[in-house]
């Protein structure tokens, strides 16, 4: 099992460009999440999904959109990138089991917006 994978690993964008980050999991997990990691701020939840076809906003959703067309994939889109979106983005997934389940993380995508 590959677990949680993310594509791409690195990306540099110019302000105003758009891009999509892909997250894929092969563990048949119901829940998927997108976080951003910034120095001194820990991980902050951008959007999450509790199942195929559903998405919900997290703590910092502005400037991002997501889609969960297939259970195994969770896409994060930046329509018009801004320098404030320079960050490391992590995807995670978890089971529908118990009150709070362990989250499995991807390797991260390092995004720089110039």
């Amino acid at each position, binding site marked *: 099992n590959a677990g949680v994978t993310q594509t791409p690993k690195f990306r540099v964008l110019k302000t105003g460009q758009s891009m999509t980050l892909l997250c894929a999991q092969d563990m048949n997990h119901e829940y998927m999440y997108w976080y951003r990691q910034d120095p001194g701020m820990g991980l*902050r939840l951008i959007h999450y999904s509790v199942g195929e076809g559903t998405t919900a906003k997290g703590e910092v959703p502005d400037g991002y959109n997501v889609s969960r067309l297939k259970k195994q994939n969770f896409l994060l889109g930046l329509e018009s990138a801004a320098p404030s979106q320079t960050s490391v983005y992590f995807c995670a997934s978890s089971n529908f089991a118990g*009150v709070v389940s362990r989250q499995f993380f991807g390797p991260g995508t390092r995004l720089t917006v110039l």
Partner: protein
Amino acid sequence: AQRVTQPEKLLSVFKGAPVELKCNYSYSGSPELFWYVQYSRQRLQLLLRHISRESIKGFTADLNKGETSFHLKKPFAQEEDSAMYYCALPAGSGSARQLTFGSGTQLTVLP
């Protein structure tokens, strides 16, 4: 609102010394708390969760409801313990599968 506070951004200890990474929380109800770890160039992974009451890699953490703390402890630190550590708890009773993370503590174990 649920909140996790990790007061130390950086923590350095010598190999063989005890280490304690602090985590304080605010939560209504009985929280389920986690410690996640990120080693250099690796992905974030679960270290331990309080509900399991387990010891992983020599680390333990006890939930203290009176002090609202979930400090991570290890009696004898090793160089391979150097990593970023995050404390986390559920974001809310209505969205129990989300986690709120603290800002993290970078632990460096010196030789």
